[in-house]
């Protein structure tokens, strides 16, 4: 961790590492003590289940002078390690994954401290049969409160460390005329039909249909706001949105630090081909948010809080005063895919009855499980340290927390992989402030496995990175439209959506 030189030592380190990795693998120490403890590695990849198409699970042993990891699978073994990091060349890793698919890898870590070597209790990495979608995308943002300089939506190839920018807000405006970008969303994991929002300067919703981007203004006089939290219909050119009047206030002492709240919210449906917005739900005293379609597109799930204003003060002020009273439940409405009409709401999970607030419903691709986030109150759980992920078996209504995947810190935004075996979610377990992405294997019975951080080439990366990852989504393919093409489309006047009663 000490970096004493000024010249970019890491340039030399990288060259050296490349040379070393091209050469022989480190020899195991001949003399060592045995420890009956697992090594303290970062990120924690001990006893995790991984997809075979994941990038090398590089890790480091923080307080060690040096470390060597011996990977054993089948009849093979291989050693890796340089200084206190284990960084596995991509080719080597892919070979291991190919041979160990459906099996487990035993990893024995030797660490050196004060020139003495210690052999730690081995741990296992289980390689699942099921692969994960090859790409993910997320927004990269500082964990700021009101400032939003330098936001970008990035995409990452999960089988390697390749990351690229989908769109960066600095391409359009900067400083006082800055632009907030958020809520990227895809239809059925593809990128030909996708969307994200741009707020403030040159704002609008960037909607890509059949690979063609265009900017739309979804705000109409009849709706609270433009579209906010989106959900693409899985088969039709429809997007369900919540419309929100969102505010935030700051905790003077709680570790949560910020409370992001809605003082009003409804649901709308945007018909892309007709460029029409219609209301799905705008119940009095209900705040509906986070729509999500069932895989067949026949049901819309969402969260809603019952809240009645009782004081003669500004709505924002009352919400701030009574924010602990705002508890969201999960509802669903049947959707007629022909007439585009919705049924009356049906309560799916009554979180308020147990004093909790449930948000972000996500249905597994098999349609059997409902995954959601639950905290003490409110709808913006990434700022709630107590927030955890829960799963409901829709067949019997049984709900249980993801005991292996959850942590003591906030777990929030989550997505199912297209095969339903992996979930990707954001968590603040590393340092309670910066959101990192975690993957967890979920078996066919809805049982979660220990989660692991999306690997980085340099295992120290998360330690040093001063930005958060949020809104993680799986993708089957990368976004092919360049950031500059998006910028060119964003500079155009938005197409005004029409409201339909």
């Amino acid at each position: 961790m000490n970096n004493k030189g000024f010249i970019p030592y890491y340039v030399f380190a990288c060259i050296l590492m490349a040379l070393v990795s091209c050469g022989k693998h480190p020899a195991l120490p001949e003399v060592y003590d045995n420890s009956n403890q697992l090594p303290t590695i970062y990120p924690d990849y001990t006893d995790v289940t991984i997809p075979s198409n994941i990038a090398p699970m590089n890790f480091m042993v923080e307080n060690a002078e040096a470390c060597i990891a011996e990977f054993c699978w089948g009849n093979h073994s291989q050693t890796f390690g340089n200084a206190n990091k284990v960084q596995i060349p991509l080719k080597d890793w892919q070979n291991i994954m190919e041979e160990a698919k459906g099996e487990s890898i035993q990893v024995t870590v030797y660490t050196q401290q004060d020139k003495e070597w210690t052999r730690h209790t081995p741990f296992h990495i289980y390689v699942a049969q099921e692969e994960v979608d090859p790409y993910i995308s997320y927004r990269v943002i500082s964990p700021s409160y009101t400032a939003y300089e330098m936001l970008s939506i990035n995409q990452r190839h999960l089988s390697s460390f390749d990351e690229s920018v989908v769109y960066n807000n600095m391409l359009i405006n900067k400083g006082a005329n800055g632009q907030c970008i958020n809520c990227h969303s895809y239809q059925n994991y593809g990128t030909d039909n996708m969307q994200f929002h741009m707020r403030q300067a040159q704002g609008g919703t960037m909607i890509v249909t059949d690979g063609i981007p265009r900017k739309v203004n979804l705000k109409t006089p009849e709706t609270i706001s433009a579209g906010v939290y989106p959900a693409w219909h899985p088969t039709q050119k429809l997007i369900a949105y919540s419309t929100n009047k969102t505010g935030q206030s700051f905790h003077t002492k709680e570790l949560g630090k910020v409370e992001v709240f809605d003082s009003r919210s409804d649901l709308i449906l945007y018909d892309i081909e007709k460029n029409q917005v219609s209301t799905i739900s705008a119940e009095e005293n209900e705040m509906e948010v986070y729509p999500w379609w069932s895989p067949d597109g026949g049901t819309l799930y969402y969260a809603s809080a019952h809240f009645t204003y009782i004081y003669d003060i500004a709505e924002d002020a009352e919400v701030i005063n009574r924010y602990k009273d705002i508890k969201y439940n999960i509802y669903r409405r049947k959707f007629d895919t022909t007439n585009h009409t919705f049924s009356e709401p049906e309560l799916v999970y009554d979180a308020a009855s147990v004093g909790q607030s449930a948000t972000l419903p996500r249905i597994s691709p098999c349609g059997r499980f409902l995954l959601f986030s639950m905290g003490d109150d409110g709808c913006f759980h990434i700022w709630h340290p107590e927030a955890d992920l829960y799963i409901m078996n829709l067949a019997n209504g049984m709900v249980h927390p993801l005991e292996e995947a959850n942590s003591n810190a906030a777990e929030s935004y989550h997505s199912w992989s297209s095969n339903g075996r992996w979930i990707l979610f954001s968590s603040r377990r590393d340092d309670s402030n910066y959101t990192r992405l975690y993957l967890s294997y979920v078996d066919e019975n809805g049982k979660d496995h220990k989660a692991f951080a999306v690997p980085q080439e340099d295992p120290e990366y998360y330690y040093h990175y001063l930005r958060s990852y949020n809104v993680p989504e799986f993708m089957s393919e990368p976004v092919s439209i360049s950031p500059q093409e998006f910028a060119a489309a964003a500079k155009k006047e938005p197409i005004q959506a029409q409201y339909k009663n």
Partner: protein
Amino acid sequence: MTQSSWYIHLNEESSPKYSNRRPMNKRNQSINPFVKEDATTRTISWKPWIEVVLFALFASWILVGMNSDYFFTVQERSLFLANQIFFDEMMATPGGLLHWAGSYLTQFFYYPTLGASLLILIWLATYGVTIKAFRLNHTWSHLALIPITALLCSTIDLGYWLYQIKIPGYWFSESLAMLIVISGIWLGRTLRGTWGYIWLGVWIAGGYPILGWYALLGGILMAIIYIMESEKSGSQRFIPLIYVVTLVGIVPLLWYYHYNQNRLEDAWICGFPQFEVKDCTSWITLAPFFVMVAGCLILPFVLVLQNVIKGRMQTIIIRTIVITGCALVTWIANFSDYNYHAEMRMYRYAEEGKWQKILQEARECKDTPTRQMVILKNIALMNLGQMGNQMFQYDNGGKLLHTRDNLTTNLVHTAAPMLYYQHGMLNYCIRWCIENGVEYGFTVNDLKLLARCSLLGGEFNAAKKYINLLKLTTFHRKEAEKLEELYNRPENIYQSEEFKVVRELHRYVAENLDSDNGLCEMYLIHYCSNMTNNVSPLVQEVTLNYALISRNIQLFWPKFFKYAELHNGEEMPIHYQEAAYLYGNLEKSVNISQMPFDHKIIERYKKFNEMVQAYMRQGMTDKEVAEAVKPAFGNTFWWFYFFCNDVKTY
């Protein structure tokens, strides 16, 4: 390169013997004015090293003698991290390598003399290279002072832009850029024909990612020189310029598709300093760069000047004008506002816990202090337990910040995180560190405060992150290691004298959902004066003091009585007695007749009252009365209560 070597080279270059030894420069010989003007150069005894020495001495005086506190603050408000992430983030825009290198060198202002010396060395090198690149002889060497004087001005004229600048490593990056540009011209000048064109292409296309717009500037300057030295006639003479203009037009456009965080319209000015925040675009801070560019553009035309201005007196007059002009402009550009520098000194003392030094600074203040200075003074008194006796002994005014443009600077930009931290309001300190970090880039100052807040707030993994980042700096490792000891032994946090007051105040911060709306002092006054803690004597006294500052009588009495209860048997501090006696007389809601006031305070109040009444009867305005009464009673709560009314917080 030494000064003497410059002298020898210049003589050689301007002598016929020298030109005979370098026949490949024959073409230059016919163009280069210095070869023709041997007579002039021989007759003038002026040596460039005199300029060099004068400039170095003057720059040292300005940088070190007048701006040490400023440059220390510069490095506190900058950041360099020796890791790949920082490097990659810098390289994400054209000119990124300059910012990376500039950020590295800016660290050396931790020792202002060391940083200033490096900067002066770069400028002297630029001066020398400028003479070489533009082949200036003794007569015109002073023109090489113009670009480096502009650079000197650009480092000391920022004022409060220091807190809102968005250019990493600004204080070195621009100087490094100029050194590289002029070195490139020097090299380019040795090349001719196809090689010259190749060099121009490589310079602009390859230099743009490293230097940004400076690469374009260098290309244009080289093209002008090529035109000036071309033996071709007619339109062919302008081929280099057409070539360069084409490259300048196309290259940034091509690179735009490589970078993903620059606007297309900014492609041609990437790397050019921009001072732009909400409602303010500063041109005055850009002035040195316009002068610098103008100075560079003049240099290729020295030939014309030389043909026009030949007389010895004329050249002496021009030199005198240029040199004195450079000195005068620098003097004017220097942001020497007393409070601006005093704020920086006091902030540093607060950071280091040197409370007496803050009070000394407050006592020696030559101007009406700013609100930041007043709050820091109160924090010092709070840490020394002297608020009740001394808070109003100092000037509690609030001079508005001196600015040269319409830049709005609030406490949240300058000191709010520290002020919140010192009041134990760790969440708000963290908030503003991060808000400012996002908007203007993270700084050493942010990381230190974030690490401390995280340690005190029990967010140890976050603290570890910030400590690890501080360890990646060059000069703040010791501070990081000190904090790391606390991270390793959290129990020591509870025994540390350094954190004693902050810890105690934080312990009793009440949980609320709230917002300061960007007005730190207003929020502190409101929050602290409404605290209801009755357990901690420290917290109770802080809330009593803020009740005094808020001049709220209803808030004062319960806090006053609680103070008396918690400090039973102790002497009641002067200002609390003054307030109680005043409020008791103003409003009869509390019977003060049985209170054991110091008779001197009662006597003094009577005199104060009589004097005010007398002046009022004379028809003086409130402002005039305030000034008249101030010498005798300016150190009382009464004066603060009645006359310190036009203070504006920000």
